[in-house]
């Protein structure tokens, strides 16, 4: 069995790519959160940039559209003083594999230092990290259903800043878990950081078989699933990824799983409500809750820049130490 971390870690355990939260140590995840915290303070001052990645070139390689995620990565790169290039690549219907390899070869000629990759195939970021020249860092901005590690880490940071340490917390993730790369990354991170229980709530058609093997407890009922919850994470109902016959209607989904004030009352009185966005009001969450006092959804967005700055800095750092000659400090 191949350890996924033989690809994303250097020999001494530093990040050289950021592909998945799976298998990363508690120490390393905590280091990402701590580093992100220090970037949050730089975001609050007049000059929001630090010169850390000055002279480096970052390429946003998005094979799947996403204005939100792409612009937060762009902003994060700029605030690290890096040069950023945005490439939106429409995937051709034929010869997909060759197109990906050819794209990579063409890009390598541009001497980039980092690719931020979003792709609709699970394992694509992994594939690129293995194929690309050795000194390019790969940041996974989402691959198929597999992972969205920067989103998961900003969610962890949100929990830490609003509810304290993740250790001992009960966290519920609600909605289309089957197709969700965010949920998978969140589950790994929550488990590693010591959450007391990670629950997934949804209809049988949207919870993957064997989700327990990932350490999450499935619930089909909001009342039972939200009892004693410290954190409720609502997922977007991903209409574009659903095949037919998974749900009868948005209306029935909202009735059973939509987060209303009434359902939120099943959770702890001081529970926080999160959502990776964009929100479908009236489908997975009602406005009163999305805009209400328990919601930290807007904070998630600002933490997103800091987390991405942290991960980009750490991965670039790991790549640098691989390349540096042995000179004394």
């Amino acid at each position, binding site marked *: 069995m191949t350890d996924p971390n033989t690809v994303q870690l250097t020999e001494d355990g*530093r990040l050289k790519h950021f592909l998945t939260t799976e298998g990363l140590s508690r120490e390393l995840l905590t*280091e990402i959160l*701590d*580093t992100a*915290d*220090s*970037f*949050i*303070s*730089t975001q609050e*001052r*007049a*000059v929001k*940039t*630090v*010169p*850390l990645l000055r002279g480096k070139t970052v390429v946003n390689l998005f094979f799947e559209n996403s204005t939100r995620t792409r612009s937060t990565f762009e902003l994060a790169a700029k605030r690290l003083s890096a040069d950023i290039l945005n490439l939106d690549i429409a995937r051709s219907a034929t010869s997909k594999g060759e197109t990906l390899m050819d794209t990579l070869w063409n890009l390598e000629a541009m001497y980039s230092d980092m690719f931020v990759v979003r792709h609709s195939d699970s394992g694509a970021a992994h594939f690129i990290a293995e194929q690309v020249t050795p000194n390019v860092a790969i940041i996974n901005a989402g691959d198929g259903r597999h992972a969205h590690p920067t989103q998961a880490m900003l969610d962890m940071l949100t929990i830490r800043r609003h509810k304290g340490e993740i250790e001992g917390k009960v966290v519920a993730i609600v909605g289309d878990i089957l197709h969700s790369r965010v949920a998978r990354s969140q589950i790994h991170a929550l488990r590693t950081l010591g959450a007391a229980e990670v629950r997934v709530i949804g209809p049988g058609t949207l919870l993957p078989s064997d989700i327990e093997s990932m350490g999450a407890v499935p619930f089909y009922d909001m009342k039972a699933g939200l009892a004693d919850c410290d954190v409720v994470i609502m997922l977007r109902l991903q209409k574009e990824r659903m095949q037919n016959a998974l749900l009868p209607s948005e209306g029935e989904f909202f009735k059973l799983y939509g987060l209303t004030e009434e359902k939120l009352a099943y959770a702890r009185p001081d529970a926080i409500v999160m959502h990776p966005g964009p929100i479908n009001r009236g489908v997975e969450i009602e406005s009163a809750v999305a805009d209400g006092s328990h919601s930290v959804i807007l904070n998630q967005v600002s933490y997103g820049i800091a987390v991405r700055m942290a991960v980009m*800095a*750490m991965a*670039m*750092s*790991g790549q*640098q*130490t691989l390349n*540096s000659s042995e*000179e004394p*400090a």
Partner: protein
Amino acid sequence: MNLPDIEQITQELAGQVSEMMTERQLDNPLLVGIRTGGVWVAERLNETLSCTDEVATLDISFYRDDFTRHGLHPKVQGSELPESIEDRHIILIDDVIMSGRTIRAAMNELFDYGRPASISLVCLLDIGRRELPIQPDLCGATLALNDGQLVKLTGPRPLALTLA
């Protein structure tokens, strides 16, 4: 080699800083310590000087010039400065000055926070070997080291020097 008595030097330095503040008319100065040793020294000086603000801390990890060689330091803690440093008289404090690169990074960072009225540099120990044209306004003691020797400040209480 005789290592200087840090506790004693710090006491003397506090007096010198106080004199400098009067001479240069540094009203309501902001003491800024550079992590980690500079923060200990700044806090010790503040016990005598009792400036109105708390000691601010500066983490220069994001401004170092050796990122290409050594990458990011794993224990980045971030800087903690007041909301505005506009027009403030800053007394920048570090434990040891050697090449001058740390101070260069610290000043770059301070200017990303705002535009101070002035910066005065106070160092506990000057071990020479400058690589940049940067000199402390006040210095507790000088020390000449042999090739390959390094000093380290331990603290916060008691403050002491060890040779590495």
